[in-house]
């Protein structure tokens, strides 16, 4: 006929196409995140932190374990090395280069956060999946155990577990901090699994005769991941802060050769009245990094929340 009707057909075809093109939740969330300045800011901090941790061996000018300025330390006169040529931040309590310790410290700090989150997540995943997928008495037992763990305020639980070890190491600190997160992850996963057990797509899969294990791993778990990822980013921040608190209470890793920000902050407390800057630097680092993870986690939460999608 004419070009006009062609135009209509083209429009109609476009219509049909946009009908079938479903946009997945993740894609939609990502589209919102990409424009969210809060998320971008948080993500920038996190990326910078990870890059710093990876590159720190090359960035640090000095060996963080060597007491190269030890001769300037005087316990009696309460003196530590001031900022000087080659050591812009000066030295610490025993004369090690503070800047190098801060730089290298990012590695251990990142490790504390990541390992604690991984351990907490893995244990929580096992418990939560057992409880949510099997139900019945397994659910009851697991959830009572979780209730007992949750009845002790987070840090107190970490401290209690930390105290179990006669000689704390970096790993026992991580373990103590991670255990606090286990019941939280377990609850989160169980709740999300329970909600899904009765959802239409799981019922449909069950009606089609899909095996229980396949339903759990292919349908229920992937759909629970959103809140878990959100929680993980927040837990990363909390773990780093909690590790610092353990150190502050004297239950941290006593071996201070390899620097970690939390431990540095905790150990700075003994000299904090005379040399507060020894606390300020690691504290500032922790705050910025924790803020980065928190901003990222909160904006992720908002983006994944179906209610905020309007």
């Amino acid at each position, binding site marked *: 006929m004419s070009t006009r009707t062609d135009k209509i057909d083209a429009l109609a075809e476009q219509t049909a196409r946009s009908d079938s093109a479903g946009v997945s939740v993740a894609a939609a969330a990502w589209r919102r995140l990409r424009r969210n300045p809060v998320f971008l800011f948080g993500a920038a901090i996190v990326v910078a932190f990870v890059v710093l941790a990876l590159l720190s061996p090359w960035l640090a000018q000095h060996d963080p374990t060597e007491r190269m300025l030890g001769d300037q330390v005087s316990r009696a006169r309460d003196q530590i090395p001031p900022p000087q040529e080659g050591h812009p931040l000066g030295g610490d309590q025993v004369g090690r280069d503070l800047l190098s310790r801060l730089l290298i410290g990012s590695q251990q700090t990142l490790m504390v956060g990541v390992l604690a989150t991984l351990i907490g997540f893995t244990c929580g995943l096992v418990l939560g999946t057992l409880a949510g997928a099997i139900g019945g008495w397994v659910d009851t037992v697991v959830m*009572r155990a979780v*209730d*007992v763990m949750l*009845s*002790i*305020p*987070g*840090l*107190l639980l970490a*401290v*209690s577990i930390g*105290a*179990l*070890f*006669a*000689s704390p190491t970096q790993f026992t600190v991580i373990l103590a901090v991670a255990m606090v997160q286990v019941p939280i992850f377990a609850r989160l996963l169980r709740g999300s699994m329970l909600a899904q057990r009765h959802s239409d797509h799981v019922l449909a899969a069950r009606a089609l005769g899909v095996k229980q294990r396949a339903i759990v791993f292919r349908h229920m778990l992937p759909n629970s991941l959103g809140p878990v990822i959100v929680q993980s980013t927040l837990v990363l*921040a909390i773990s780093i*802060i909690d590790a*610092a*608190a353990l150190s*502050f*209470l*004297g*239950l941290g890793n006593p071996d201070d050769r390899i620097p970690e920000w939390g431990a540095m*902050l905790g150990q700075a*407390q003994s000299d*904090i009245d005379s040399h*507060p800057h020894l*606390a300020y630097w690691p*504290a500032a680092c*922790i*705050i*910025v990094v*924790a*803020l980065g993870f*928190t*901003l990222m986690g*909160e904006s992720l939460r908002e983006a994944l929340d179906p*209610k905020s999608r*309007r």
Partner: protein
Amino acid sequence: MLRYTIRRLLQLLIVVGVLSLLLFAWLRSLPGGPVSALLGERATPETRAQLTEELGLNDPIFVQYLKFVGRALSGDFGVSTGVQPGDPAIEVFLQRLPATLELSILAIIIAIAIGIPLGYVAARRRGGVLDNMSVISSLIGVAVPIFFLAFLLKQVLAVDLGWFPTAGRQEGGIDATRVTGFFVLDGILTQEWDAAWDAFVHLILPAIALATIPFSVVFRITRASVLDVVDEDYVRTAESKGLTTPVIRRRHVLRNAMLPVVTTIGLQTGALLAGAVLTETVFAFPGIGQALAIGFTRRDYPVLLLLILCSAGVFVLINLLVDLSYALIDPRIRTRGGGH
């Protein structure tokens, strides 16, 4: 409702029971254990063996546990070895409880009094300057290690500016009459106003430090909850009735928005003790938190056991109260099961 309450109280007993067993086992497995704690690491094997026998530590663990429960039920939790050496653990607890309660109550009041109104206003002006500022500051509040914040407050406001006392519950020079153990309350009861004021001033900085996390959480939950509720259909219905703004705000928005906030407040109140361990240590504030911190470093097991058990009991009890008050504001829970 009554049956629900009884069932929840039973649950509380079970949690505390299980926890006491766990804590008991935990205590036995701690490095050194009670013998080393009492005698020190350098005691001879003979004296160690003797004390082990005397303390009944050679009995099977569940026998030891039952004996412990028996003593505990009569109020005997053993003697403090580190926090206040020689004092019965229960006395350490009772002496310090009012201090921490005073501090916690003030902290939670600060968190609620600022968090809820700010959360409401931020939600109503979503995306505005106030909203963004308060959201960011609440996130910073979570990111700052609480003991560092406490230190900063102390350093700037108490040490440098001298506006507040740096440590303790009351100035040593004040001769205050003790009635309840709550210093502020005591001052008011005995009309020793300067004592009450001094005790209150000592509370302010630690309470602010302690309030940061509950404030951030209460603020953000209120904000999110109000944002959810104002978009609800029933708020539109209320608008379509031509109701006045105060009625809509109070009866339709806030009443519904408060449901999740109440839970949050309960959880945060229960969790305050964790923050108190750090805050009280920084301000040398003689409460439960400080006792816990000292207890851990000096391995004062009887005191630790009692304090952790009590804090868990309080936490569970608060949650029970929260759930009950929830039923008061949410008829969907109140009338469940008893429906028509």
